[in-house]
């Protein structure tokens, strides 16, 4: 299936739940709401024509310009994206799904935005979601064990956030 076909199949199934799309991108993608993500993923995995049996990558992208001189020309509003890259072993096609989130839940700094976990659909999601939680600060609701994976358990902050500040010291070790 070409990516245009995949997009139209999704639109047929979910109609107005597909909030945005870009079919002419290098890797065509659609945007869904966090609440609809699980249903969309289930459809992507189980539909015989799509059969995305591999989840290659989950990652978060923090859209924030911290340089005050560049803010006006940044070209985006501050937000957080969680990006899912799928591929199909059977049909050999690829697809991307994005979820747009506020940087903080209810705009309260420190409250992590929430996305439903897809760890029950793909084993890959388990560790990738933990990594995204660890580094980008996204809470995956329903994840079996959402703990930090690369950083130590008592680390503070989410380093891949653009406004992250490296700690001054960590257990007596000078940071910066």
């Amino acid at each position, binding site marked *: 299936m070409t990516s245009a076909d995949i997009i139209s199949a999704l639109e047929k199934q979910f109609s107005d739940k597909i909030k945005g799309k870009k079919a002419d991108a290098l890797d065509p993608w659609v945007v869904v709401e966090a609440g609809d993500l699980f249903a969309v993923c289930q459809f992507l995995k189980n539909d015989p024509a799509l059969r995305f049996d591999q*989840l290659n990558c989950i*990652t978060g992208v923090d859209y924030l310009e911290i340089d005050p001189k560049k803010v006006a020309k940044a070209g985006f509003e501050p937000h957080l994206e969680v990006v899912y*890259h799928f591929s199909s*072993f059977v049909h050999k096609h690829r697809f991307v799904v994005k979820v747009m989130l506020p940087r903080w839940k209810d705009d309260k700094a420190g409250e992590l935005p929430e996305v439903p976990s897809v760890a029950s659909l793909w*084993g890959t999601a388990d560790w990738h979601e933990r990594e995204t939680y660890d580094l980008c600060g996204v809470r995956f609701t329903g994840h079996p064990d959402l703990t930090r994976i*690369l950083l130590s358990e008592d680390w503070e902050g989410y380093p891949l956030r653009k406004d992250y500040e490296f700690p001054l010291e960590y257990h007596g070790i000078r940071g910066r």
Partner: protein
Amino acid sequence: MATATLPASDPTIIEFDVRTDEMLVNMGPQHPSTHGVLRLVLRTDGEVISEVIPHLGYLHRCAEKIGENVTPIQYIPYTDRMDYLAGMNMNLAYSMAVEKLCQMKLPEKAQVVRVIIAEMGRIASHLVGMGAYGLDLGTFSPFLYAFREREMILDLFEEVCGARLTYSYITIGGVHDDLPDGWVDRCQKFIDYLKPRIEEYHTLLTRNQIFIKRTANLGIMSKETALSYGCTGPVLRGSLDARKGDVAWDLRKIEPYSGYETYDFKAIIPPFPEAPREAVLGDAWHRFYVRMLEVLEAIKIVEQGLRRYRPLREEGDKLRAEFDRKQNMLSAEEKKKEEAALNAEFKTKYSHRLAPPTHLPAGEAYMETEAPRGQMGFYVVARPAKDAVPLRVRARSSCFCNLSVTNEICKGCLIADIPAIVGSLDFVMGEVDR
């Protein structure tokens, strides 16, 4: 009293009496068979494992955060340090992602050099994989032989780029330098030397009865598990079965890049008629054997690459010499025209490197390549505003996914089998932790 007491010598009483408690055993982070710094917490009942919890992050070096602060060219040296046993392939993966974003089309010669170098890197990496696996299982000699051969590849790489481990040779737009004079012959000489040696490794390990006993029918992974956990490379291919109509999942075949579609080679998947009786599809032995056969395929690709490189180099040199010879006889205008024509020809065919982009076009690109340990993917997001530094660099590590399957395939095995199973996944912690 009616209750009869059994004599103390009755063995059934002793069996009821001895209870083994569940125990947590720490393996690593300094355990030699964890290939770097990986900590496995084993939940055991006696000798039997009921759960394996890997703890990672000891080698985390913030590679993705660094990527947000440097230009793609500056980032190349950091990719070397991900999978440090296959630095060339990491360079290639990141370069391909940036080139996809910039929609660059590389000259033929650059692609040929890349294929030669990437496949040599694959051979070197699989040699270490084989040697270190032997080491995990307690045999020392294959390791020495593997390193003897790898040393020669490192010498060849050193000639090409001056480094022996962190090459930064393959870069955005092609390769950093052209191959040095006489390198092709020396490479061919090495290939001729290596080819007959592979059979020796088979006698040392593959067909060694002790090795088979330690690896066959162990750590069996089904195709479904492998796909669900995102396992790729030899780890996935060891679980596929051509008899059931599985495609040989190798990105060089499925989504060819760098002109791999024009090379004659096979993607290796079972069944292997020569497999020992004890081996089961998807076990540690199969994963190991897939790697061994891939070395042979890589040799085939390198040989074809070298054959293609020679005429490209000669023709390019000839054109350049021709132009140099006659340029003094041309008028300024003619000279300009001829030079432009020559440059255009080099850009499509004879050059080893195009000028790298000065800034990244808005957009994003996700590109996966077939590295020795699986599919190494890079996701590069450029800023919408004109900028040379990407907004986000994400490294999708193949070993990270391959390692996450550990718990699934170690359940129910013995503690002594852990090195054999974990070793067969052949991961490098530098790439897992990034």
